[in-house]
């Protein structure tokens, strides 16, 4: 859109950096919006009058009368004045804020302003709370009022009469369903359907409970089915090699062999040691007999109570 406003008469705005969270920027936006609404309303009103009550004596709209021109000029002056007033207000707000910030940095003033700050904050909070209370009350009021209004409206509306006035048959007759269906790209629609999400919503258990499995099975001719299956061809298509390799990868045969042989060799060593222990006791007893002395405490614990132990030398000659 071309820039229609001549540069030299464009209103200069925002001479100062906008005060953060200040009043003037809000006021400027509100004024802009309000004036825009007013202007649009006036234009719409004038357009409506021109359309519905046309003036037979109207001249060329590009050549307005002097008074009309004056009105437009007055609007321009007023708008520029408004902008300048807002600029001044913004400057004052900016100056106030700057002085306030400066005062907060001056040692003695700073201490005095702490109290003022606290007081302002307290009253601001108070105001916020009070406003919130009123807003809540209004919201409650509206929440109760709206259903009541709608109820009253619905009671008075005769829906039967409204529906009766709708020419449904004509509407349906006018719709060429075939043409509509032809225009629908079913593939694209199906591509957008999330089948997984749909299936997640299906209660498979409930579905299966409704199925008469016995009845279904009774209707299946298993023998006929089996006779139609070519097992040899099926097995021929199965690659056993990779399957066996996968299984062997999962089974740690080396570990099993190590564990079992380790356990077996451990048992063998233990057995040999135990035999040596029993022979120790046996030889010790024999020596004691030969030396013609009773039981000695060569070892505090004996293993001779074991049935598999070597025979006691007292039972017979060694």
């Amino acid at each position, binding site marked *: 859109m071309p820039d229609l406003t001549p540069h030299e008469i464009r209103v200069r705005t925002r001479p100062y950096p906008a005060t953060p969270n200040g009043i003037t920027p809000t006021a400027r936006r509100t004024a802009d919006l309000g004036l825009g609404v007013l202007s649009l309303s006036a234009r719409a009103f004038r357009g409506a009058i021109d359309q519905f009550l046309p003036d037979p004596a109207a001249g060329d709209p590009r050549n307005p009368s002097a008074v009309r021109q004056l009105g437009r000029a007055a609007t321009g002056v007023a708008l520029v004045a408004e902008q300048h007033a807002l600029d001044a207000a913004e400057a004052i707000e900016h100056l106030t804020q700057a002085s306030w910030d400066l005062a907060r940095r001056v040692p003695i003033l700073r201490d005095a302003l702490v109290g003022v700050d606290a007081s302002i904050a307290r009253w601001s909070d108070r105001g916020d709370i009070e406003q919130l209370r009123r807003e809540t009350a209004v919201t409650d009021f509206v929440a109760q009022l709206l259903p009541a209004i709608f109820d009253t409206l619905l009671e008075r509306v005769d829906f039967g009469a409204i529906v009766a006035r709708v020419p449904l048959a004509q509407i349906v007759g006018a719709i060429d369903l075939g043409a509509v269906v032809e225009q629908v790209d079913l593939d694209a629609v199906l591509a957008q359907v999330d089948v997984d999400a749909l299936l997640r919503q299906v209660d498979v258990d409930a579905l299966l409970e409704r199925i008469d499995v016995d009845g279904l099975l009774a209707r299946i001719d298993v023998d006929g089915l089996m006779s139609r299956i070519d097992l040899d061809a099926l097995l021929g298509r199965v690659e056993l090699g990779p399957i066996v390799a996968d299984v062997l990868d999962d089974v740690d045969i080396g570990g099993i062999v190590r564990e079992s042989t380790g356990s077996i060799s451990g048992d063998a060593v*233990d057995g040999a*040691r135990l035999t040596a*222990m029993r022979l*120790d006791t046996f030889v010790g007893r024999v020596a004691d007999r030969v030396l013609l002395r009773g039981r000695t405490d060569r*070892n*505090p614990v004996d293993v001779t109570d074991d049935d598999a132990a070597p025979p006691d030398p007292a039972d017979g000659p060694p």
Partner: protein
Amino acid sequence: MSRTIRNERAEALQGGRAGFVSRVTADAIDFLVVQVIYFTMLIGVAVIRFLITRRTFSVVAPDVWLTVIAQWTIVVLYLGSSWSSTGRTIGKSVLGLRVSGLGGVPLGPVRAFTRAVFCASFYPTLLWILVSRRNAALHDAVLRTEVLYDWHSTPTIHLTDQLTTDR
């Protein structure tokens, strides 16, 4: 590494004094180990000689006195170092035995090497086990040492002393 002993009697005997058969068997295994060390050394010497002289590879058979001295030295070093460190030689760890001072205390290097010299010089003193009332060889009696059943790697409580004091 500690291992589980599945036999209850063997478990009960842990820490007891080992008898003649176990100790002689362990010594027999150690004798084999010493022979392996000795012949490995002979072969090593032969390899080095071959590498230096580049003549035919031949293992020299040393004189008998040299063999005796060499084997005696190997036995002393092997037994002494084993007993002063873990208390076990290869043969003793196969049979599950451990050499210790009275009460199961580990042997110091001096006592271990003295015992090794004793064993290497007067091996038949082992026969004293048969005479001793507490399964002690002559060198055990002199050096106040004993050989215990100890299938665990970690030293066990000295069962013999405990039970003797109980009686």
